[in-house]
């Protein structure tokens, strides 16, 4: 029998290793020959730990309940028949998966992440093969046609950036992958690096080919040790198979990749701070210009893209820019891996074309709150993104629609809060987090965030509410207008959204005296 169990670190955090061990032990005890393939995650975290069994019809899922060893034993007793307890039916037919549009995450959770054969069988390296036969400019054109925009938060057109690096002079250029994924509520980069690492390497090699770079760096946050191990192992195998190295596929094009580990600093997700950190220094923001495309890593022209941006590229090259562009709405083309997180019944990864409404994501896919209480707010876009009230959930999830309403899609994380949330406390956290993570280069951010915490504490204590609310507003304006980067510049977004949409939480009983 062939079994599949996720080895993704989130799956493991709720028992996937124990499940795999129980399967192996039980099969051995019964003298049944079993192969247990450890895959990445399907993104069905709410069902973890789960296992899948290969059948003629496809993979059937089971979610053992209670004591894992006992549950596995009874599954063997019942020969993993569809009537067994915890049977989920055909995994591909689960509505949560069937209603997705999986392009980037098409393989994740299905293949052995380190098997080059699996990767090839499932269409891997077709994009790179095509790119190797194309002129660099044609690759950039194909990406331009796809409409691909950066998935790291700012939504900048990928082809414009690539074009700038391609046009920059210099015999040494770099491709840097931003895998700092610091936003709360996001885990798609991690899931991809652990579940389909060759896809990222392929995307980076295509980028290298397009801009004339022969070296790539992946900057991975230290909170992701499993992703780091997986990437390094994948790099070794890709080299061994000739998909990385001095001469890829006999094309004469050489490209290699190195993983560097972060050290616990949210600001190092900002691209210039990431470059400083990659160069081994303090992660301080660099003033722009010069743009990294002109003077980036070690002063050389550098492409910087998020994991999901680069991982979308192989599909675009393999199936054409037009194919990718046909997903999505307006100026948001293609698919976005949304991450459903926080107080949500069915948390996980949902890859959908842009334009799906937040409500569809949170209610139809997510099933509402985990607590069963009323949903009060969702935070989209991480700690620099706004809190969206329940009444506005019909907004479509695309860059422009959210921006118009004063919100941000960011990296696609959607964090759900029920009605027990205290929005003043969330606003305070935004300021506190900024104070904790500020690189310290400019005063509005470094000092403003500390002042923000103090002012919010006074409002919470009911001290001179009118005066302090006005002060908070001034502070937010100052931080927005005068900060050097989006850390200080966008911290007011969650604060102001909380004030605007949840003013009742800022009306506290008056303090007795000053």
């Amino acid at each position, binding site marked *: 029998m062939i079994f599949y169990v996720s080895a993704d*670190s*989130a799956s*493991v*955090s*709720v028992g996937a290793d124990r499940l795999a061990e129980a399967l192996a032990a039980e099969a051995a005890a019964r003298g049944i020959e079993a192969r247990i393939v450890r895959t990445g995650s399907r993104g069905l*975290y*709410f069902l*973890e730990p789960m296992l899948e069994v290969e059948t003629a019809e496809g993979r059937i899922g089971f979610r053992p309940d209670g004591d894992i060893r006992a549950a596995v034993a009874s599954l063997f007793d019942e020969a993993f028949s569809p009537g067994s307890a915890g049977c989920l039916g055909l995994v591909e037919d689960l509505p949560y998966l069937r209603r997705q549009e999986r392009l980037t995450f098409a393989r994740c959770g299905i293949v052995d992440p380190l098997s080059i054969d699996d990767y090839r069988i499932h269409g891997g390296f077709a994009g790179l093969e095509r790119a190797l036969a194309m002129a660099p400019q044609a690759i950039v054109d194909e990406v331009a046609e796809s409409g691909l925009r950066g998935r790291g938060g700012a939504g900048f057109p990928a082809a414009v950036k690539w074009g700038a690096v391609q046009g920059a002079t210099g015999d040494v250029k770099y491709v840097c992958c931003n895998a700092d*994924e*610091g*936003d*709360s*509520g*996001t*885990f798609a*980069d*991690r899931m991809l690096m652990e579940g389909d690492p060759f896809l990222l390497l392929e995307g980076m090699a295509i980028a290298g080919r397009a801009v004339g770079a022969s070296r790539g760096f992946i900057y991975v946050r*230290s*909170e*992701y*040790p499993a992703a780091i191990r997986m990437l390094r192992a994948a790099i070794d195998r890709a080299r061994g198979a000739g998909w990385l190295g001095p001469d890829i596929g006999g094309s004469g094009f050489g490209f290699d990749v190195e993983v*560097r*580990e*972060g*050290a*616990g*600093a*949210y600001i190092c997700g900002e691209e210039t701070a990431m470059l400083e*950190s*990659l*160069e*081994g*220094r*303090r*992660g*301080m923001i660099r003033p722009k210009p010069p743009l990294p495309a002109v003077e980036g890593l*070690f002063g050389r022209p550098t492409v910087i893209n998020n994991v999901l941006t680069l991982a979308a590229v192989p599909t675009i090259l393999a199936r054409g820019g037009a194919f990718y562009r046909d997903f999505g709405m307006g100026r948001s083309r293609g698919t976005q891996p949304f*991450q*459903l*997180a*926080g*107080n*949500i019944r069915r*948390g*996980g*990864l949902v890859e959908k074309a842009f334009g799906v409404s937040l409500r569809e994501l949170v209610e139809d896919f997510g099933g509402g709150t*985990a607590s069963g209480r009323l949903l009060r707010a969702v*935070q989209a876009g991480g*700690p620099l993104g706004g809190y969206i009230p329940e009444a506005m959930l019909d907004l479509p999830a695309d860059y422009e629609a959210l921006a118009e309403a004063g919100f941000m899609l960011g990296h696609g*994380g959607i*964090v*759900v*809060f*029920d009605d027990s*949330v205290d929005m003043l406390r*969330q606003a305070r*956290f935004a300021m506190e*987090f900024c104070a*904790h*993570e500020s690189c310290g280069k400019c005063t509005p951010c470094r000092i403003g965030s500390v002042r923000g915490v103090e002012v919010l504490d006074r409002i919470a204590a009911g001290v001179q509410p009118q005066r302090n609310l006005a002060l908070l507003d001034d502070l937010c304006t100052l931080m927005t207008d005068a900060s050097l980067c989006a850390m200080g510049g966008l911290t007011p977004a969650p604060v102001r959204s909380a004030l605007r949409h949840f003013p009742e939480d800022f009306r506290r009983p008056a303090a007795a005296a000053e």
Partner: protein
Amino acid sequence: MTGARPQSDSEARVARILAEHEGVEGGCLMVLQAIQRAFGYVPQEALAPVARALGLSQADVHGVLTFYHDLRRAPAGRRLVRVCQAEACQAMGARSLTDALSGRLGVALGGTSEDGVSLEPVYCLGNCALSPAVTVDGVMQGRATEDRVMAALEDAT
């Protein structure tokens, strides 16, 4: 990691780490991370040899050391519990989980208890669909509860 360690031994270990990173472009942070992996923290005595080997000033190296939340200038406790404090985990009770653990362990967040358990904040472990998230000596728990964390601490001491 405590007690007397012969000076020469730790010097030799730092020298070995520096040799391993020779020629690495922009290697300062990597070297400090490797030193921390070897020692559990970055000893003050390591700064001079690191600076010399990398052609930096000691102030530069000190600057890197103090910038990053991961890097320690003193050893952590013998056990390390990190509780995610970020928004998705907040939405699932991370604050009360932190308070409960703090009470059970007898240590405030950011401190080390008398019997050597460090309780530290972390901001997102990428496990936000299974919040709250905690790591115990680097092993992650999703849907973490006070009891599961305490059990993990008792498990492998």
